[in-house]
């Protein structure tokens, strides 16, 4: 009687399949977690050191006859990084002020402006640069690597970096005056 009433043998999922399923679930959750974490981080925070990057430059917009510029080579200078695009109307509002600020600080040799052209086409980008008489180093954000590094939320966006490569101020949207740019640069130069 006891033998006949014993519980039947259960056919369970093989152990290798269980391991596979659980591993896949864990990997999937990790991927989702990483993506959500990155999205929640937002822009590079003020006070953070800017990771190194290389910006290829448009012909005619080189820096010291170099066809590309490496951010780590700019240590010791105040760096103003401006993300822009030719299709961006608000960018046009600040273009002249940025150029004026560049012309103001260029003789000092202590400040460098970098224009990062975001998801744009080169002919239109060049037309834009010519239209506003921009002369500071400018180049395309190939593969959107730099904008992803900064996790920009759009254009225009401008990052002010101190002489030690630390981000000190972020401007989302266009500047409304030359003084606004100068105020931030002067603060960093005074340090």
């Amino acid at each position: 009687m006891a033998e006949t009433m014993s519980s039947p043998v259960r056919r369970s999922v093989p152990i290798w399949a269980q391991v596979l399923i659980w591993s896949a679930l864990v990997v999937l959750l990790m991927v989702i977690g990483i993506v959500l974490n990155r999205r929640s981080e937002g822009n590079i925070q003020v006070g953070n050191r800017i990771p190194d990057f290389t910006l290829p430059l448009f012909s005619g917009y080189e820096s010291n006859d170099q066809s590309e510029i490496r951010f780590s080579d700019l240590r010791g200078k105040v760096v103003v990084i401006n993300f822009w695009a030719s299709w961006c109307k608000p960018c046009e509002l600040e273009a002249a002020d940025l150029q004026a600020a560049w012309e103001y600080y260029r003789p000092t040799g202590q400040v460098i402006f970098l224009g990062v052209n975001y998801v744009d086409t080169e002919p239109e980008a060049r037309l834009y640069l010519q239209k506003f008489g921009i002369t500071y180093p400018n180049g395309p954000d190939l593969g959107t690597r730099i904008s992803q590094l900064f996790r920009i939320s759009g254009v225009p966006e401008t990052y002010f970096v101190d002489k030690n490569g630390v981000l000190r101020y972020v401007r989302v949207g266009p500047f409304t005056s030359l003084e606004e740019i100068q105020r931030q640069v002067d603060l960093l130069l005074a340090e």
Partner: protein
Amino acid sequence: MMRLMRLSWLILLLAALAVRPAWAQGPRPPTDDEVNAIARKLYCPVCENTPLDVCPTQACAQWRSLIRQMLAEGKTEQEIVQYFVDNYGARVLNEPPRQGFHWLAYLVPPLAILVGVAIVVQAFRAMKRPGPAAPTARSDQEALLDEYLLRLEEELRRQR
């Protein structure tokens, strides 16, 4: 002499006919359909989830114009798409490239479906399998009853 002249005219005529298709195949501007066929494979870099062929932004208009220009230059579809990937990243593609981390997009959904199907099949099998407890109990009772009847019959025989 006449025959020679006729032959010359014939050769000239044939040569002219041979040249005509070459004139017809001269450079022509790419059509909107040709541009959109490639634009459809790309996504707007500014708006989310908007294919390039229907996006109304200026950025996309510039990209379509660039596609048109590259087609006119004789670039193939693959070369044009690759140009956009090199310049703007793989995220502009309407489907992820089959390489590296992007493989997850192709592997995870079918794997999830397979696992789901396996679980459903397992559940159906478990439902169809006859419950072992009930039949065993019934057969036990029958066996007990048989044994009881046998003993009863034996007792009755003895009493006779």
